[in-house]
């Protein structure tokens, strides 16, 4: 088991290194040098340009730059924002908390709701209930999250807050009212993001469960006189939860994609919205920093899911 964990850890660290390196080279494959490209201002003097080069570390040879980059990334330093002229790590760090406030509950709701729908579909496979829910789920799947957000805004404009995380001036309010303001702002984005993810999880649960329900040990259980829903509850669903954890972990990228869209539409001050803003202002260090943080989160989530799988499945205990 320890060896298994160690092995997964090595793989995760390797993946993080690859992502960091990717980030480094993305920045360097820009046509022309990045500073000229980013600050294409004819008024810029040579002296300022050199200072900019130095401040971004671009005056050194490439391997040295790469080494410095790795070193800085390891220390959590991700460069400076072009726009805010603040450390990227600080900006991203602040936003990360806000993203978690939105994504955490949304994922939880989606997993519970999606699993339930998936179980119902698999259990009633082939019936109208299955076809009906399946159609709905596919509709969920095909609908872009941001568009759902736009529709919800149009529908609830004036009824519930549709933008930001707090009402203006909320920081001066007492704590309880501040929380109230946060909750009211959370409702619509939460619905939007859960909506997007529920369909995914329902599909995954349905497919996994249908596989399991066709296995021999289910027939055996039937031949022993158990009720169908007992078999579902005690044999099929627990066995489905294992592959579910892996598949959910693999699909964390979807959660992030959904978060970017939801946060953008509802101006939720999280990493996703930060990405959108940095795209509009061409603030590349922030864009890449946000991406890096997302990728690292995803790799870590995969690592945790692998460990959980190894822990819960007796067959994997090495």
């Amino acid at each position, binding site marked *: 088991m320890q060896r298994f964990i160690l092995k997964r850890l090595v793989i995760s660290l390797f993946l993080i290194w690859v992502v960091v390196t990717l980030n480094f080279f993305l920045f360097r494959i*820009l046509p022309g040098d990045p500073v000229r490209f980013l600050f294409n201002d004819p008024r810029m003097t040579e002296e300022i340009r050199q200072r900019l080069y130095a401040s971004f570390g671009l005056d050194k040879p490439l391997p040295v730059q790469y080494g410095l980059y790795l070193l800085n990334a390891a220390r959590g330093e991700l460069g400076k924002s072009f726009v805010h002229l603040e450390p990227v790590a600080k900006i991203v760090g602040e936003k990360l908390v806000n993203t978690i406030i939105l994504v955490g509950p949304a994922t939880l709701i989606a997993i519970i709701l999606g699993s339930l729908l998936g179980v119902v579909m698999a259990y009633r496979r082939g019936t109208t209930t299955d076809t009906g829910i399946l159609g709905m789920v*596919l509709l969920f799947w095909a609908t872009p999250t941001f*568009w759902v957000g736009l529709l919800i805004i149009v529908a609830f404009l004036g009824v519930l807050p549709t933008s930001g995380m707090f009402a203006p001036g909320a920081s001066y309010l007492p704590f309880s009212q501040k929380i109230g303001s946060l909750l009211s702002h959370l409702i619509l984005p939460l619905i939007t993001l859960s909506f997007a993810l529920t369909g995914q999880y329902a599909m995954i649960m349905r*497919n996994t469960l249908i596989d399991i329900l066709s296995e021999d040990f289910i027939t055996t259980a039937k031949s022993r006189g158990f009720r169908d829903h007992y078999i579902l509850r005690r044999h099929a669903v627990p066995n489905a939860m294992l592959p579910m954890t892996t598949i959910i972990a693999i699909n964390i990228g979807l959660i992030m*994609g959904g978060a970017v869209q939801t946060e953008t539409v509802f101006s939720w001050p999280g990493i996703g919205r930060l990405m959108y803003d940095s795209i509009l202002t061409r603030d590349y260090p922030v864009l890449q920093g946000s991406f890096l943080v997302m990728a690292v989160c995803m790799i870590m989530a995969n690592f945790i899911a692998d460990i959980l799988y190894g822990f819960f499945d007796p067959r994997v205990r090495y």
Partner: protein
Amino acid sequence: MQIGKLIKHNLSGLVGLLVLAVFVVLSFFPQMAPHDPHRMDKDKILQGPSTEHLLGTDEVGRDILSLVIYGARISLLVGFFAAGISTLIGVTIGIFSGYYDQSWGQPLMRLTDVFLAVPQLPLMLVLAAVLGADILNVIVVIGCLLWTQIARIVRSYTLTLKERPFIERCHAIGCSNARIIWLHIFPNVLPLVFANAILLVASAIYYEVTVSFLGLGDPTHISWGMMLHYAFESAAILRRAYWYILPPGICIVLTVLSFTFIGRRLDEIVNPKLRRR
């Protein structure tokens, strides 16, 4: 034969085909649009549906129906080409990493792992931002990132195929590896690929729209994603201009759904026993 089966047994697939046919026709003959989609009109900003403008106008007074019709082309174009690139990469990597599992298939698999470990949409945004908003770039970026799923499916199927006795027989009668891959593995993988490639078109369109909405679409072309981006950036939403938001969104959903339905039905017909992982 397969098309006939599709019509006979599968209403959803048939509906998918019909809807798709409409959009394909629109993308080839956008001249059917009632107005020039580029013509702006200062006096008709964000007007609701009327007899002249059936679906109203946008924030610079363009006819929304015409914009929607012209927008079909970009989505289908990006969808098909990006899915094509993805399928090509995915099938190649899938077959080779499966067939040469013990040797250089391993690094190929690690490569797939890397791509699977990275959040797709954020990476697309970063790449598109770095490369610049251009239709070709969007195709390449989406095409180069969506192949992982198909590669995994093809790989795991190749691994099972490789263990089948008929491949062992090929070795026993002296087939070369190239012959085995091309004449024995590839034809067996093909039906699986076909259905999944169609599902990929749906994904590619979904991502194209999203990337455009998030401000990285090609501003020189009309597309559904860009329409929604402009709607979002202008005050259209605050003025509840539902006629501006609904049509492109509905078109996106219909297109994605039609590809999904066709792909799923094909998958079920061609691979009744195989379930996607």
